[in-house]
């Protein structure tokens, strides 16, 4: 059992962190104030990161990506947690693993331009009536000739204003239940595609969340991602990786950043003639945060390691999702408390980080849903899920 970082891992994480601290963090406040990232700045950070090979590091080398293992990808995602969502998207790319299912022809049109940063993709699964119950979607793809005609709509589609194509889930066979759902690659400029409102959110300012509508869009066989009827399975697979990387790992990174801010403040801020870090009630908040962050991190690494062993980590991912997201919630809450009035005040980033943290327990499956999955698996498989032998 080896817990240390290899020389390459250490250098990579240091280099990514250094890039985040010097190039991305200085832009955070501006994004928050303006509500968006200036296109010129987005282009500049993309070009800098791309030149360093930091864009699409999770993508295998055969598709032009960085070729990192699942564990290395997860560790870089943890570093990404040290900055805000929109800056991560532009600097490091959000190339979803589901796109690796592209055929050779589809690769040319969708995956490869995405890895190059020439195109951007959003995942479009959620509908007003289908959140955690993602099989309840109403979007329909009706067979027409050798293709389909797509009708319906989605909402809460992250980065949808910027993205130029979408992985859309749609019912292809209404009689086949969850086996009647398929995934399609849908270009934004398809006739019949419209973007609705940008739905304003509590946090993660700068990342658009939009409604999108499909009005009888003509899809060809090339638009189908994977096999017909395989959509639900692909959704679960791809969301598994999203939950681990974009939610679990980033939650750990964000928690670590918050604890660092808290610790510095507790050492500097003086009340009653001493640093507030000398008070035991403050110490408890710092101790609990450190304990929970380490527990979340090693659970996270274990799940990623499972994937590198060729397993799908489906039992581990929900545990990570719940524990990392809830750790972040608690750490962010304590950070506001330790900072006191300054934690509530917009002069410091704590209140922004607190608002950004809240979504982690909700998106990509609520804590409640994931607890249900964990419990179901434990009841079914028993000790294999919580014992070591």
């Amino acid at each position, binding site marked *: 059992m080896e817990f240390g970082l290899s020389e390459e891992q250490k250098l*990579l994480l240091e280099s990514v962190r250094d890039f985040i601290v010097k190039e991305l963090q200085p832009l955070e406040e501006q994004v928050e104030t303006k509500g968006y990232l200036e296109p010129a700045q987005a282009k500049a950070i993309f070009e800098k990161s791309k030149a360093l090979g930091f864009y699409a590091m999770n993508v295998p080398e055969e598709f032009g990506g960085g070729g990192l293992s699942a564990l290395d990808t997860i560790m870089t995602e943890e570093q990404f947690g040290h900055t805000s969502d929109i800056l991560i998207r532009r600097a490091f790319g959000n190339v979803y693993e589901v796109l690796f299912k592209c055929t050779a022809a589809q690769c040319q049109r969708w995956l490869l331009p995405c890895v190059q940063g020439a195109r951007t993709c959003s995942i479009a699964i959620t509908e007003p009536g289908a959140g955690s119950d993602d099989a309840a979607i109403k979007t329909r793809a009706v067979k027409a000739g050798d293709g389909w005609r797509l009708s319906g709509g989605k909402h809460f589609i992250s980065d949808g204003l910027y993205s130029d194509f979408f992985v859309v889930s749609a019912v292809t066979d209404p009689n086949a239940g969850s086996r009647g759902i398929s995934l399609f690659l849908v270009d934004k400029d398809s006739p019949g595609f419209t973007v609705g409102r940008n739905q304003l959110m509590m946090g993660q300012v700068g990342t658009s969340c939009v409604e999108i509508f499909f009005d009888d869009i003509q899809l060809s066989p090339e638009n189908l991602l994977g096999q017909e009827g395989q959509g639900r399975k692909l959704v679960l697979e791809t969301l598994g990786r999203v939950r681990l990387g974009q939610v679990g790992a980033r939650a750990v990174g964000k928690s670590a950043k918050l604890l660092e801010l808290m610790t510095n403040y507790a050492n500097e801020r003086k009340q009653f003639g001493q640093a507030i870090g000398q008070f035991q009630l403050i110490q408890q908040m710092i101790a609990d945060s450190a304990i929970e962050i380490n527990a979340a991190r090693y659970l996270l690494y274990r799940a990623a390691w499972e994937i590198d062993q060729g397993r799908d980590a489906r039992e581990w991912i929900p545990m990570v999702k719940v524990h990392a997201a809830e750790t972040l919630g608690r750490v962010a809450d304590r950070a506001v408390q330790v900072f006191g009035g300054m934690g509530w005040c917009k002069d410091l980033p704590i209140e922004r980080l607190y608002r950004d943290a809240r979504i982690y327990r909700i998106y990509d499956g609520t804590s409640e849903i994931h607890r249900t999955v964990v419990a179901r698996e434990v009841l079914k498989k028993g000790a294999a899920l919580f014992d070591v032998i």
Partner: protein
Amino acid sequence: MNLVVLIKRVPDTETRIQIKEGKVVTDGISWIISPYDEYAVEEALRINEKLGGGKVTLLCLGPNDAKETIRKGLALGADDAVHLNDPAFGNGDATVTAKVLAAALKKMQYDFVLAGKQAVDEDNAQVAVRVAELLDLPHVNSVIKLELAADKQSAQCTREVDGDRDVATTTLPAIITAQQGLNEPRYPSLKGIMGAKKKPIVDWKAADLGLDPATLSAKLETVRVDPPPARPPGKKLAGDAATAAKELVRLLREEAKVI
């Protein structure tokens, strides 16, 4: 060109320095390439990138753990490295360090040598100059701009002097030290990081340099290490602007004695 860059492993500049039993505690601190040395590495890489060839060799004196620091330099793009790694070098001051580095450079082929103007740990700013003296090479320090002559036989070096610029031309080989402003160092790229392990690092000990460990004792004795005194609290001048300005002038003249 064949360029050698002297690099030193130093505690991260954000380290909180703690002193215990008269020594700086080094346990659990993170280490970096001294920032001025990073400017030197960057300049060497840029020179060869511009010329479209050549080799950048890192030369580092330090303990086993300095390998990690060397590896970062290789990840930045240097081609290979020499690690002067012998416990006999370990207790050296600037005199000994310069002696060892000079002995190593005597064994190496180079067109010129770059280094940081000083290491940010002890801020001696002596080693590079001493090495140059030992090797009887010209040296130009604290350079913020470096331009090679077309024939590559000399270099024009710009330095900052009291609000002005001082330009010195030196023949090569020489030892040139980097000041902040020379360039903006790059980040190690993913490709550089993954390739760093494949680049050769040679370890040289005292015997490899023909040095007798008995001659490597420090000339400098450290009697005591103290943290810098805590900064005294600031002073707030009361009264309206005219009164405060008058009081400020008095304090600057009588207390601070700067005017």
